[in-house]
């Protein structure tokens, strides 16, 4: 072993030849170094100077994320400005996959926190697979406070997971006017193409039915944008300037909340419709279809199970019965028959027919609902006690086609033209129609059925109400409407709706007066069929109707209870009040409710009672105020 000293002194020197060689090698090394310097400089040039602006954009996009902010949807108010529907914040869990370094683990954690199966969460992730990666995926909606707080506190453990606050429809009166108001749903491709693309994007909520759909453009408002500076984990650092949202406009309806609630309460458990209209304008005060839809079920998409239940329900909750329910008008049609008879001069108020309880025509006997018969009846009693035989006689004398003419003039058999979707027109048969549709000539016997509102006749509750309005106001058919005004977020009225006269019947007032008189009798006479609708302080006029369904169709239900239900007659009651100076018309239909007088009239009475109670209250308040002023 050499000592250090020796090593040092014995160290071999570099001789001249070696030095030469060394030079060559260091030169080669220098070349290598210069080569790499050149590569690096060139690369640097390309990155920073040549493509620099491209990377600059990328860097800006990297840190600034553009987020759409959904505007708060407009409120829905009743005619007095009381809020029916508004919005509340809805906390959703969304996940930006891009921001999660370990997606599987995040899903596992979330499954535990949200108490949701991994498969369910993964399904939602898969459904969003086609979206760009930076678009948040909705994992769970409307989380509760506890979960919210937990996620907020642990957000460093959950990179990419965010809480998104979205306005959600808040139904203050639950299923209030559900068919009228309609519901929201996720926008589909077709709607996305139709709508203004700047204000809509996939995943947005859009009005699918009812007013939510019809007034979508008013209610929606304008989306805002928010620029958010984020770090690589998706955590928001600070908010940059963006575009403010513009809340949607409010809809003030013509609907009276109290009356609608009263009607809906009275219809609980039943199927059918209640329509109330302002006699002097066509404003709809009540527009109810029973059974209601449970609107909360539709938020965020209705489940298949719930949908199947709705489809299978014998009370047909999916049908908007005020405008889509078509029923034989029953005895309410006698208004038309009477009007036609009077106008054609076939009868006068004093014309008397004898009712023995039935009437023989051809080789068939047509019965009156009262088996014992009414004896000799004039127009007033015929309407008040709804004598069938009287109207058989009138019908025969006028003929089916003249009857149809007057029905049409009273608004039956065609759409009322209300600004609403899927209205049905009903059916008022004529001889020509039968020839065309059935290929058979009209039988006079059928005219008898038509005259009392049975047979082929089909009407909607809204049509009957519109007819009642015209009867009450002396012949003006108003186009029914639902929206009073549209109010912008600052409270300015931007649009107001005026009554529209659809048809005005000229020269019929004296006949209508006679019919009104008969209808007052129906409610107030000793033997009137609509006595159940009587009010103490106000004279109500009304007409009952009982529409037979049995002979019309064969039923396929095997369930006996269902068959029994489906065999029951539809109950009608249409009315107006006060008789002397009508203000409101109320029409009630109870599907398979039985007799109009017993099943439908009490419901109309409740709505009317409420209306007049409200009015008296208002007047006493006014009187009090005046007194206060005087004092």
């Amino acid at each position: 072993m050499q000592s250090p000293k020796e090593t040092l002194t014995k160290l071999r020197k570099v001789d001249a030849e070696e030095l030469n060689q060394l030079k060559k090698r260091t030169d080669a090394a220098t070349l290598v170094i210069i080569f790499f310097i050149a590569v690096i400089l060139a690369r640097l040039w390309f990155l920073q100077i040549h493509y620099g602006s491209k990377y600059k954009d990328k860097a800006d996009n990297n840190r600034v994320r553009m987020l759409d902010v959904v505007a708060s949807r407009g409120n829905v108010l009743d005619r007095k400005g009381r809020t029916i529907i508004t919005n509340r914040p809805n906390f959703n869990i969304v996940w930006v996959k891009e921001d999660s370094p370990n997606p599987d683990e995040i899903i596992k954690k979330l499954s535990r926190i949200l108490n949701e199966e991994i498969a369910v969460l993964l399904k939602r992730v898969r459904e969003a697979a086609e979206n760009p990666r930076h678009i948040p995926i909705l994992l769970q909606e409307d989380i509760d406070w506890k979960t919210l707080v937990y996620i907020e506190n642990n957000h460093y453990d959950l990179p990419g997971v965010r809480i998104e606050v979205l306005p959600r429809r808040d139904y203050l009166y639950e299923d209030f006017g559900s068919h009228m108001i309609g519901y929201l749903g996720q926008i589909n491709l077709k709607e996305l193409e139709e709508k203004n693309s700047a204000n809509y994007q996939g995943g947005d909520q859009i009005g699918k039915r009812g007013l939510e759909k019809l007034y979508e453009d008013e209610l929606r408002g304008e989306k805002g944008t928010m620029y958010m500076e984020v770090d690589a984990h998706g955590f928001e650092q600070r908010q940059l300037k963006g575009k403010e949202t513009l809340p949607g406009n409010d809809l003030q309806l013509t609907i009276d909340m109290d009356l609608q609630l009263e009607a809906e309460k009275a219809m609980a458990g039943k199927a059918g419709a209640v329509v109330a209209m302002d006699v002097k304008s066509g404003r709809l005060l009540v527009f109810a279809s029973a059974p209601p839809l449970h609107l909360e079920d539709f938020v965020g998409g209705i489940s298949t199970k719930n949908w199947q239940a709705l489809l299978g329900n014998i009370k047909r909750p999916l049908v908007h019965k005020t405008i889509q329910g078509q029923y034989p008008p029953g005895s309410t049609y006698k208004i038309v028959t009477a009007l036609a008879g009077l106008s054609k001069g076939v009868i006068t108020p004093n014309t008397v027919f004898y009712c023995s309880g039935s009437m023989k025509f051809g080789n068939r006997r047509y019965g009156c609902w009262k088996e014992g018969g009414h004896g000799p009846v004039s127009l007033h009693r015929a309407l008040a006690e709804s004598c069938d035989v009287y109207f058989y006689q009138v019908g025969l004398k006028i003929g089916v086609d003249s009857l149809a003419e007057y029905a049409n003039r009273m608004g039956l058999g065609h759409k009322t033209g209300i600004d609403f979707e899927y209205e049905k027109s009903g059916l008022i048969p004529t001889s020509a129609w039968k020839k065309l549709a059935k290929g058979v000539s009209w039988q006079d016997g059928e005219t008898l059925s038509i005259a009392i509102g049975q047979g082929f006749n089909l009407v909607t509750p809204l049509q009957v109400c519109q007819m009642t309005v015209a009867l009450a106001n002396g012949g003006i058919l108003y186009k029914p409407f639902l929206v009073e005004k549209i109010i912008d977020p600052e409270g300015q009225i931007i649009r107001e709706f005026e009554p529209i006269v659809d048809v005005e019947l000229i020269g019929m007032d004296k006949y209508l007066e006679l019919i009104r008189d008969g209808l007052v009798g129906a409610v107030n006479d000793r033997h009137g069929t609509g006595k159940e609708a009587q009010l103490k302080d106000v004279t109500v006029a009304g007409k009952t109707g009982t529409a037979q369904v049995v002979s019309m169709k064969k039923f396929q239900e095997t369930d006996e209870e269902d068959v029994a239900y489906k065999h029951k007659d539809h109950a009608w009651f249409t009315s107006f009040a006060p008789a002397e100076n009508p203000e409101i018309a109320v029409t009630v239909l109870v599907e398979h409710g039985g007799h109009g007088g017993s099943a439908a009239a009490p419901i109309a009475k409740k709505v009317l009672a409420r209306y007049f109670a409200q009015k008296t209250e208002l007047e006493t308040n006014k009187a009090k105020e005046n007194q206060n002023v005087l004092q």
Partner: protein
Amino acid sequence: MLVAVLLIAAMGLVNLYSATYAGGASTTTVFIRQLFFFLAGLSFIMIIHLFDYRLLLTWNYILYGIAVCLLLASLLLGSNIAGTQRWINLGFFRLQPSEPAKLMLVISLASYYYRKDTGRGFTIGQLLIPMALTGLFFILVLMQPDLGTALMFAGIFISMTLFVKLKWSTIGIIFGGCSAVIPIGWQFFLKPYQKQRIMTFLSPESDPTNSGYHIMQSKIAVGSGLKFGKGYLKGTQGHLHFLPERHTDFAFSVWAEEWGFAGSLFFLAVYFFMILWGLNVCLASRDKFGVLLAFGIVSLIFWQAIINLLMVMGFLPVVGIPLPLFSYGGSSLMTTLIGIGLLMNIRMRRNQVRKN
């Protein structure tokens, strides 16, 4: 020389402050630690000047042994960070033994080549021992696993071996061997994540969220610096955490983002001045050991710098190689400063040989 080193290290510190700047408490600790290591390293340079570098010739096997022990220790009791066992916790700081091991390898190879050099070129048989010396380090580091540093060892070995004279037959055998070994190595020895790193390097844009992420983000950071940068402490990529490992391996991205092309150019000028000066030391030394040692140290710094820079600019896959003097990391900084101390030592004693 010392000026260049000081300048680079100062830039590194300034940059480190920015890279970790977030207003948090950890910011200052990282900065102060690096400053401490830098000052400690400078004093090491002074100490190294006190003895003759040629003493290393006698100590080289001891040093090599220590390095092996440290590497083994890091494998056995090392703290596990991010799935790798690269560190030995010494209480006040965590030593990364693979850093000094790089220097030990340089010393060992220089000693061996110096002893065996006959001037007629090395045969393949004579290369077996240096291969074994390198191979042991290589395997130990690969087991951590740290492919980048392992390849660094191979790089040092190749540069130093090419620097000494080889027989043509030897060169032929090595090339033949390598082309046979590489596919086999790919198949059997690389861990999946290492394979993936190499694969994503080939097309980083294909997977912008996972493996390609680092490269993408780094390129964005560098590119968005433009001519004059975004200004000190104003880089968005770094401060918003888009850049991973921004104070260690990707420190230069932060620099390039904040100082732009001009700043990067200045940095590179100083850096390569230092490297060329190192090469000059190699030429100036009058004994073969000094020449080999100096060349080894220069190549050590040079290859790390090149690999790091090319990686930052998206030319190479992400391997954990720091930019010597610039990146954060006590072990790396100390090793580099010791290396530079040795270079200065060699330069200082370049004329002593003749006198003897």
